[in-house]
């Protein structure tokens, strides 16, 4: 639940930031959310990856279907991609990677100042 909540929070904050700020505001969004709610290692990364990545993917997909892929098909060709769907996927991927690393940095920054919690769970 916490993980899903984080994804939604990152996506929501990214969306808000994007209304007023350039693209890199998603990096800040993912960073801030993880600063506030750090989790562990790969899970952090994944929260930023999915939060920003899905936001970009879905928004790109919406524009693409609204505009009958006229532009995305041309840009796909420009990037030597087979079709517009690849442009949607790449958009999600690039947003995801940026969001993922930002999220990782956010929680790691936080972890400098908090003590390690006692290890939970069975996978430690």
């Amino acid at each position: 639940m916490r993980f899903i909540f984080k994804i939604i929070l990152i996506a929501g904050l990214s969306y808000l930031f994007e209304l007023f700020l350039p693209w890199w505001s998603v990096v800040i969004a993912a960073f801030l959310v993880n600063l506030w709610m750090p989790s562990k290692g790969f899970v952090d990364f994944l929260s930023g990856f999915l939060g920003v990545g899905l936001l970009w993917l879905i928004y790109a997909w919406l524009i693409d279907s609204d505009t009958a892929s006229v532009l995305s098909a041309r840009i796909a060709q420009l990037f030597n991609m087979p079709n517009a769907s690849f442009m949607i996927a790449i958009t999600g991927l690039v947003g995801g990677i940026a969001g993922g690393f930002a999220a990782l940095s956010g929680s790691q920054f936080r972890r400098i100042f908090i003590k390690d919690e006692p290890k939970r769970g069975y996978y430690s």
Partner: protein
Amino acid sequence: MKVVKFLLSFIITIALTVALSIKIQSIPPLGKFLDPFHGFWQNAETLIPEGSPSLALEMLEAPVSVHYDSLLIPHIFAENETDLYRVQGYVMAQHRLWQMEFVTHVAAGRVSEIIGERALEFDRMQRRKGLAYGAENSLQALMKTTLGQVQLEAYAAGVNAYINKLTYDQLPIEYKILEYRPESWTPLKTALLLKYMADDLSGSDSDLENTNALKFLGKERFDFLFPSRSMDAEPVIPPSKKWEFKAAPLDTPKVVIADTSEFIMQVMDQPDPDNGSNNWAVAGSKTRSGKPMLANDPHLGLNLPSIWYAMQLNAPGVNVMGVTLPGAPNIIIGFNDSIAWGVTNARRDVKDWYKIHFTDASLDEYYYDNNKLKTQKRVEEIKVRDGTTVFDTVTYTHFGPVVFDSSFPADSVNNNKRGFAMKWTALDASSELLAFYYLNRADNHAEYVQALKYYESPAQNFVFASAAGDIAMWVQGKFPAKWREQGKFLMDGSTSELEWKSIIPNNHNPQVLNPERGFVSSANQIPVAQNYPYYVYDDTYEHYRNRRINERLGKMRNIMPKDFMDLQNDTYNLMAAESLPLMLDTLDIASLSVEEKEVYDLLLRWNLYNNVNYKAPSIYERWWENLYNLIWDEFDQDGIEIQKPDKETTIDIMNNYPDDAFIDLQGTTVVETLPEIVQESFSQTVKELNAWKEEHEEEYFWGNYKNTRLSHLLRLEPFSIDKLMVGGGRSIVAANSQNHGQSWKMIVELGDQPKAWAVYPGGQSGNPGSPYYDHMVSNWSSGKYFPLLFMKNKEQIAAGIMFRQSLYPTTDTEK
């Protein structure tokens, strides 16, 4: 450890964010570019264009409404002229900002700023042509007139109002791909655009090539191979026209050709030799409606975004519709309630070269008569993207810029003593803008004539028709009065004897009003018959389209718009009609292989129309090319710039001088005859076409073989369109070759209310992400037209208005 972990991921994050924000080589900044909220996705448009229906603009004095019809053609209604031009600039920028700015960068030699070092030599050439210098001259002249100043400044204010409110997400896609931003629009940019057109349309000349040819051939042979007038030419102005004036006498100097001890190895690139156009008008006596009709189709490079943009402009005193050049105010080709006008290129040798005798290598002074004259040095500062600033000093003589010298071109082979200065009317101050201003408002023939007085360069044949019943043609431009052959070859720049002495007075320029034959027409042929009192020369006069048009117009009666459409789309190949029978007759049929015989039969049965679904036009074109190259193989001289004789001269020689020495092939020891090279070129053609078929995996139907295409200005393939199935070709009325052709087809029927039909290869929007980027292309290639909506006033309730935009002034309280 935690700190190290953090630092590691933090550095990666920062590095990644930076890397995704900057352009790396040709890859746009990926994060910025792909971001669906601001990046390229924001350039994707729907069928109903978004845009604020009402908009406050600080620059306006009164409200302006813009009605967009179903073709996305804006109809601008303003309450005063200044607002009209402001909104024209605004609307233009809204649809074509990147294109209009890019073209002015091309003219100014500033492409390196955008795409980097690979454009450097191109930029240097543009600057040595002096286009920016010419634009500055024109700008000065225009800004001295109130009318010029008002138009230029209003237009610039409109463009800037749009630029100033542009955020990254709204930038045209090309700016995002190349990662740069538009700069402010200035009146100079409009002047640059007009000089860009002047270069495209009057930049061609062959003085240096002719000089080489003369050296190579001798004068007698040169005159035989490069006649200044073809036998069966039909001039623009009918030969029956009497000239009621005499030219002032000119003394031909004794020594006219500069001494060049060696061949000239470097010349300027020529504009596309097919740049031309068709226009014609017929009198009411020949039309079904009893009113005159007019047609025009300018032939230019087929690019996207298209060179033209359709628009209606309305303000007190003006109501005009037609096409505008993105970057310049007014309508360039079009009509109003009372008149219609159109243009074709009026070729004339208006660019001459002078060999300068410098006193020393510093190029500071040169000999002229018995004096030494000082040169002016213009330092050109070329800023290269992501790199250095390159300074190039261009030396100006009183003739004009010295294009070639020891530092240009960079890879020059033979440059030590060279100093060729260019004298060219396009570099002079001129005020074409005023001509269009007055044409837009002209009501009758007298006002059309009055308007043309402001027009100098590039020279054009202005066709005219009026609702009052007049038709006319005026060959307008700034033409030097020359003695015979002045400027045909490189001239000696050390004596005033060889200078241009005067300009032909405006009212001596060739013109005709209501000729007896009931029509006027031009298609880039020679303007006048021998009886015209001035010397007229150009080496590129067109020889086929014009005669086909005249033949058809001569026969037409009860003309309706459909007849004009058919004529604009006419694919009859007159050149083939005048050369193919000879080629086929010369062929020895008995010696043909089975395969060759089949090809021969195709040609034999051909009706001479260059239609897309025929194979014969492909065969003829290829065969002609091969034959032509075999005949003129003598001209393939390594590195020496020289031109081959033109098509009509070649056909004349094949017909009347089949034993000419040049028929023989150089590389062989035997003496070839015409039948032998006809045979050889035919076999070669059949082989090549079969190879073409295998390579392309399709039949060589004319449409496939010709492959007419619209290329994006940056040559980006996905933004271009190829394989357009459109008939016609070079020397054909429907002049559509591979990447060149009918850039705007317009037909106007005058009457109480003018009716017009038009189409162009492209669309109103310059955005590849808009459905209006190419929405007229399929109609254009299939020869169909759109009726134009010409609104009487803004209250006219017109079907087909897609949406309206109201622009209103910002009131003081809102500021």
